[in-house]
């Protein structure tokens, strides 16, 4: 019997699937990376923003005379002055029908709408001097009414932050599927609760940083920024500063964490770019930690009523939710502040075959900080609600949580299909993921231990969360709404004169391993050794046009483009090799940096091919013009998103006397299709899980009734540290997508999607002897003790 032909991925010395160390780590380990804050340019000055201490106030006057006279001060610029250089923006997308928002300026003009909104820019020779001068800027405010939270925002008669918009309802959407009322009426049991989620924020260790350099001689602005989407920033900075895109270059070198925080447009960043143009010199802005808490996008501030209808055989008949979320006074630009809510309403019940669903979501403007996409976006909320309701249903009918999931998860052979909310699934593996999970943890043993310890007053619990996760989004996400956010990416791969490969890619790196992933793909596609591959990214002048890294798309889209480009380059190389070797290119291949013949013998090295093509074209046929460079782009087309799926489990102990929770163990099974490098994937999952664990137990932006953030510092906003997190076990199921050659889906957000849900379910499982269910996170000790009636 003949051997099946090698699939495109089973190539000689393929690096696909190999957990190799990343090639670019030495400089980071030596402290020789280059983050934006490390950059120093000639004549560079620093900006500090004077920020409103009030959540809502009219700016009556700004007297900067004393500030301007301070040593080292170059300029003090008000919002009105900056508005002549930078136009305002509105964060709406046309495909989100009810979404409305008001124009936002780079620095507030006339009115400040949240604590921390910049009201003046102070530019000086050093940041310290800028802060000294900022303290002397005399601003007179007239305090206005404060819309402190979502309830206040939507209360009848509530004053509208933007009167021209009519009210504070930024966005509303309803979905109705199947026969919801009939399902509830016929159910054997109905359970309901209100889910409350703590607003939280990304806390990238490197704060937002930007150096904007306007070269008046070239009439060109170079912006060094840790952005995830450089081409988007190029477009928007050009647009709002009245420049042509070609006049703007975005350069991203090392970035100290992003998680979605750095994919948005921030007023401060636009202001800094505008100041550079105004002052005709480089301007540096590094947010300090307090500013980061006050102005980095917040996320996940939801209150959601949820109901579930279940039959006694465990069939979940219907889900119903009514969700409200608070955003800031402006919808963030350009990706809006409504995507999270829009996802929540669309993802409820996603893993399950339940056809009946009713959902409503409302997004409310408040005078809190602005809000937008943060790792996982709506998935963590939707998963917590769904999985919380599934467990509630299980408890109502006395069914084991694994069993109720088995009865309701979409069957692995049911694909392609779609959710009740219309989400299209190509091929998921919920049951295989559960099988894998149960092979990783000893469920009966954990239950036995739980029972044994309960008898002596020690309360351990295990909780599960099945989840789906959007990856590789098509233009359905943003493009259709009019945003110039690219849903495709490109890679240009060339053979250089010494026989090495250089790949320029439009996806970007913030630590997830993009460089390594692209290098492994290119090396495999061409047949070159990995150490001969160099990646160029994060520079709009030197990469193909593309979307960047966000929404778990870099591998599935950027990687696919790199694969196709590598394959195309290999063909071009083999065409030349065929001539040189007098052989049919179809009988040749490339392995280990050399062209090999049908007998797998190395015949000519890539360095030799390069030498001949670049330096001795006279030795090649007259009609042959070799192209040792190939560029390919890729956009997903068949599905709006490449959904992935997985399941998480949390094992923990609740101290019923103190309310403190100790996380003992955590498991994730993830199906992200073809895995390029499992170590990169697993570590992304672990990082995402940690953020979800932080959400479950620790993280919350605390606000008072005047919309003042009370814990805007690193000591009072609690992020998980090494002692707070257990080991995280990761396993995989592999269901490639048929849409691309690589079959890779995305993996960056999966960890964040289900971690909090599994912890909440575990806590309720631990406390089930007490008959309490808690549906609020973060699960602080006080919340636990109150639920137990101890306090």
């Amino acid at each position, binding site marked *: 019997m003949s051997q099946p032909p090698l699939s495109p991925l089973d190539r000689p010395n393929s690096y696909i699937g190999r957990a190799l160390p990343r090639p670019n780590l030495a400089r980071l380990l030596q402290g020789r990376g280059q983050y934006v804050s490390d950059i120093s340019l000639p004549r560079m000055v620093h900006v500090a923003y004077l920020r409103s201490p009030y959540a809502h106030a009219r700016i009556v006057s700004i007297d900067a005379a004393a500030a301007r006279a301070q040593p080292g001060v170059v300029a003090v610029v008000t919002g009105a002055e900056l508005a002549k250089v930078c136009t305002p923006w509105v964060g709406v997308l046309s495909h989100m029908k009810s979404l409305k928002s008001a124009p936002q300026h780079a620095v507030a003009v006339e009115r400040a709408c949240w604590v921390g909104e910049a009201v003046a820019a102070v530019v000086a020779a*050093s*940041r*310290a001097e800028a*802060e*000294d001068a900022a*303290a002397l800027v005399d601003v007179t405010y007239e305090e206005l009414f404060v819309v402190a939270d979502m309830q206040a925002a939507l209360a009848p008669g509530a004053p509208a932050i933007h009167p021209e918009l009519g009210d504070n309802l930024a966005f509303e959407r309803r979905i109705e599927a199947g026969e919801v009322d009939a399902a509830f009426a016929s159910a054997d049991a109905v359970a309901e609760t209100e889910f409350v989620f703590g607003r939280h924020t990304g806390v990238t260790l490197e704060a937002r940083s930007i150096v904007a350099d306007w070269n008046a001689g070239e009439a060109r602005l170079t912006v060094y920024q840790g952005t995830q989407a450089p081409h988007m920033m190029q477009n928007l900075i050009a647009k709002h500063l009245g420049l042509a895109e070609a006049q703007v270059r975005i350069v991203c070198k090392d970035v100290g964490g992003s998680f979605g925080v750095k994919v948005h447009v921030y007023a401060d960043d636009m202001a800094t770019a505008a100041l550079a143009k105004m002052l005709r010199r480089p301007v540096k802005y590094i947010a*300090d*930690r*307090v500013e980061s808490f006050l102005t980095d996008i917040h996320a996940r501030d939801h209150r959601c009523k949820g109901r579930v209808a279940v039959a006694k055989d465990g069939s979940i008949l219907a889900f119903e939710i009514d969700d409200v979320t608070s955003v800031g006074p402006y919808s963030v630009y350009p990706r809006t502040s409504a995507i999270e809510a829009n996802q929540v309403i669309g993802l409820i019940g996603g893993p399950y075959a339940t056809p009946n669903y009713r959902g409503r979501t409302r997004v409310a403007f408040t005078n809190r900080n602005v809000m937008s996409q943060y790792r996982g976006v709506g998935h963590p909320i939707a998963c917590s609600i769904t999985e919380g309701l599934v467990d509630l249903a299980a408890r109502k009918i006395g069914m084991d949580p694994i069993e109720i999931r088995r009865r309701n998860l979409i069957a692995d052979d049911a694909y392609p299909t779609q959710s009740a909310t219309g989400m299209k699934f190509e091929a998921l593996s919920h049951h295989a993921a559960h099988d894998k999970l149960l092979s990783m943890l000893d469920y009966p043993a954990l239950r036995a231990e739980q029972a044994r310890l309960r008898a002596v007053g020690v309360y351990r619990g295990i909780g599960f969360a099945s989840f789906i996760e959007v990856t590789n989004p098509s233009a359905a996400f943003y493009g259709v709404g009019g945003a110039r956010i690219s849903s495709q990416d490109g890679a240009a791969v060339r053979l250089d004169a010494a026989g090495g490969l250089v790949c320029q890619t439009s996806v970007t790196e913030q630590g997830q391993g993009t460089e390594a992933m692209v290098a492994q793909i290119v090396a495999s596609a061409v047949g070159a050794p990995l150490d001969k591959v160099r990646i160029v990214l994060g520079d709009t002048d030197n990469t193909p046009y593309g979307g960047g890294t966000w929404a778990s798309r870099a591998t599935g889209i950027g990687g696919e483009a790199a694969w196709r480009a590598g394959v195309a380059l290999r063909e071009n190389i083999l065409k030349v090799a065929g001539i040189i070797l007098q052989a049919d290119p179809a009988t040749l291949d490339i392995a280990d940096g050399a062209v090999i013949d049908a007998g797998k013998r190395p015949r000519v090295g890539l360095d030799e091919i390069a030498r001949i093509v670049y330096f001795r074209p006279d030795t090649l046929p007259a009609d042959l013009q070799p192209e040792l460079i190939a560029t390919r782009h890729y956009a997903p087309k068949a599905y709006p998103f490449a959904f992935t799926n997985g399941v998480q489990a949390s094992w923990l102990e609740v101290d019923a*006397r*103190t*309310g*403190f929770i100790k996380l003992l163990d955590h498991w994730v099974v993830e199906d992200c299709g073809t895995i390029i490098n499992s170590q990169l994937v697993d570590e992304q999952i672990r990082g995402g899980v940690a953020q979800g664990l932080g959400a479950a137990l*620790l993280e919350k932006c*605390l606000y008072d009734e005047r919309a003042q953030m*009370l*814990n805007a*510092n690193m*000591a*009072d906003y*609690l992020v*998980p*540290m090494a*002692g*707070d997190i257990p080991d995280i076990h990761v396993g995989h199921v592999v269901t490639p997508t048929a849409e691309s050659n690589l079959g890779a889906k995305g993996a960056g957000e999966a960890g964040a999607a289900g971690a909090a849900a599994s912890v909440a379910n575990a806590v309720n499982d631990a406390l089930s002897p007490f008959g309490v269910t808690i549906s609020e996170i973060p699960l*602080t*000790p*006080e919340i636990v*003790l109150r639920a137990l009636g*101890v*306090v």
Partner: protein
Amino acid sequence: MKAAAFDYVRAESLAETLRILAERGEGARLIAGGQSLAPALNLRLAAPDLLVDIGALTQLRYIEPAGEALRIGALTRHVDIARSEWIARHCPLLTRAIAEVAHPAIRNRGTLGGSLAQADPAAELPACMMALDAVIVATGAGGERRIAAWDFFLGVYETALRADEVLTAVEIDGLDAERAYGFAELSRRRGDFAIVGLALAARRRAGGLAEMRLVYFGVSDRPTAAPGAAAALARRDIEAARAALAAELDPFADAQASSAMRLHLAGVLLERAFAQALEAAT
């Protein structure tokens, strides 16, 4: 955030330090380890005119046992206390408490004198000093003044130290083999300030514990003793001890815990610290 500008002088002697404090008054702040002052400076919550650095006064960095007594110089770093074998054997309450103070990098630099002078209500060491009946030595132009730890901590960041004095040493006595200790603290994450903490010191007597000191931290504006609860514990009456706490503690409320929660946790810590002390005693 960058600190507001200040002048700086590195004192070469205690006498010089006292002279500068007398001259510059309110506008001068002492800095030793700086682990409490520097964050305040960086956040512009404090803006002194002059920082007087006493870090070079190495003569104030010592751990001197003498029989059953211990004298610790104010510039002794937390890490020095953590590493002291003598303290681990003869005054393990301190060893135990120091392990909870922030993180290694802070402990490498923070000083005992600095922690006591800072008087953060949620800090471990002030409560330990009270539980140990320690005496705090303050040096001024007129010489040394000895202040009982029980009289030293007056409020949030407020101590009995005068503006022209430097805290130079701490003296602890009675560190004999009959001592038994307990220590318990609850914080959201390792190294965070305590939501509630308890330092317990006692003496073994006739199969039980006597001369019990219970000092809570994190419940009020200063470390707070619970003598009624202590007396009940000495009688092994845990219920009475918990009841006494309700009368003796009036815990404040903040984002971390309500007053009722703090009181409840204080009771739980009481049991846990007591159990430790009993175990140490047997």
